């Protein structure tokens, strides 16, 4: 590849804020590894890594304090629609949604049809995938008791709720480590379109620093590629961020789970992180079904320019192809 710049003084300062605590979420790992391996420096970037424990990271991106953060694709769509954050997804790392619902195995529940009459938790606002799942089994909100729960799976094991919302790459392993078997339901398994974590920047940064963004993304994707091939090393690097509180086995579980979710037909074809209007549009349509405001112009919410440059994909050709398929139908 290109030569690394000689003088470190020329490095462009750049802030990445991971949308949560330091752990082995794949988009985080890509950045940790890239920083550790010097990929960023090769791109001429001096990347500072921060973590958002609250929800302020999107605000910080819009004000330019942070250049790139991570965000769940569905949430991104919502924030762009309301309150109108000028955000853009640079790459879709999670090709499939992370959310799922869990019950203790000995509750005897097998399908969401069994939820009827039980307490179902949600975090803040009941999510669309919940309603989608209910729809699949011809249940309505009235058939279950909804309660707002925090991010604490002990609520489930201690019996305060029957069905608990969680992240597939995270809590299932934790709960298992406590000696409980669980049953998981993922809306995606029932044909509901879901998407996972993205790298996000602001329109303004996109306009002003396209080279830096491309460099960042290239390095981060290299980091993910490295993690795919060397998960042990990637976990070791991650652990230097995650602190002694983190359990290495758990981090390994998370990484592997998210590596799987990062694969799809699109990534097979074009590379990790690839995103298409089709994916975004079906997600937006699903959200709209449940009265969630989404942007009119879904195309503006993501860009493949950087991905195309990195993977050397001819976007025009793709578009022509897409138009051709559409016409042939």
């Amino acid at each position, binding site marked *: 590849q290109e030569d690394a710049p000689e003088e470190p003084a020329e490095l462009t300062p750049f802030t990445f804020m991971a949308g949560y605590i330091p752990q082995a979420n794949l988009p985080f790992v890509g950045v940790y590894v890239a920083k550790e391996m010097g990929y960023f420096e090769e791109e001429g970037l001096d990347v500072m890594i921060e973590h958002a424990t609250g929800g302020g990271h999107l*605000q910080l991106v819009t004000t330019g304090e942070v250049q790139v953060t991570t965000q769940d694709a569905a949430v991104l769509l919502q924030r762009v629609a309301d309150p*109108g*954050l000028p955000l853009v997804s640079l790459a879709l790392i999670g090709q499939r949604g992370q959310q799922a619902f869990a019950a203790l195995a000995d509750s005897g529940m097998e399908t969401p049809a069994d939820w009827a009459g039980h307490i179902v938790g949600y975090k*803040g606002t009941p999510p669309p995938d919940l309603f989608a799942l209910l729809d699949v089994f011809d249940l309505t909100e009235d058939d279950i008791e909804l309660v707002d729960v*925090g991010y604490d799976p002990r609520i489930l094991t201690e019996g*305060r709720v029957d069905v608990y919302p969680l992240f597939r790459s995270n809590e299932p392993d934790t709960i298992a480590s406590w000696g409980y078997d669980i049953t998981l339901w993922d809306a995606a398994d029932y044909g509901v379109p879901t998407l996972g974590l993205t790298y996000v920047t602001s329109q303004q940064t996109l306009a002003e620093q396209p080279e830096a963004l491309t460099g960042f993304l290239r390095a981060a994707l290299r980091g993910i590629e490295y993690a795919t091939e060397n998960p042990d090393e990637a976990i070791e690097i991650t652990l230097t961020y995650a602190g002694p509180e983190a359990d290495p086995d758990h981090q390994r579980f998370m990484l592997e789970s998210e590596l799987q979710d990062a694969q799809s037909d699109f990534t097979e074809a074009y590379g990790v992180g690839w995103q298409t209007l089709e994916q975004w549009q079906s997600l937006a349509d699903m959200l709209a079904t449940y009265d969630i405001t989404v942007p009119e112009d879904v195309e503006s919410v993501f860009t493949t320019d950087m991905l195309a440059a990195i993977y050397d994909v001819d976007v025009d050709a793709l578009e022509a192809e897409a138009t051709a398929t559409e016409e042939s139908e």
Partner: protein
Amino acid sequence: MTLKITSKMTVKFDNNLLVTIALIVGLLALWEGIVTLQQIPVYIVPAPSRVLTTLFNNLGYFADALLVTVSEALIGLFIGTSVGVLLASLLSLRPNLERGIMTLAVFVKSTPLVAIAPLLTIWLGFGMAPKIILTALLTFFPVLVNVFSGLSRADVALLDTLRSWHASRWEIFWHVRMPGALPYLFAALKISGPLSLIGAVVAEWTGASQGIGKAMWLAYSNLNMPYLFAAIFILAFVGQFVYSITLWLERRFVFWQPVAEA
């Protein structure tokens, strides 16, 4: 002298109310101006006009939420204050317990309660109970410390007089120490009043079901800043109200200290 002050107070009060209103209006205008001129986007800091519109358009929503939060706050404050006063009294009546109880109290107080909030939810469920307990845990400490200070600093001449009558500890406590500690108690209430609101809000923030805290949390996670600030406005207003009530109570109950003029 006394009544003169009272009549002055009325004048002062009116002036003060004007000052307060002028101040608030001025600050809001300044804020509005900055937001408009600097074109600060609504998802960073909303203009007060926008916040107030949101507030009035959703008065019912906020009123319901407020009712829950204020109930939690007031019940928590009541419990916290009672526990604080009782503990302080206990320490005053049984000084050999001081070290032990203060140690425990400082322990409780040094623990960020957010850290154990989830445990409370696990044990007590999703209702008001854990929020009330958190609020009580937050508010008892200022009361305990201040009232205990006040009880300890009772007038030595008065103490001697009651000791000369061989008054019981309890009598000394009730007739000398407690009245003497009232100024400290009211200072503590002025501290704990606003604190109780924060306590209830933060408790709702973590795994809440209802209330202003939940409204704020939702607004925050949706980056709906007008809602967030509307909630903040409400809290600020209620805080003022609670504070004013405390002031009023203080004037009524601590009547024997002539307030000097200079």
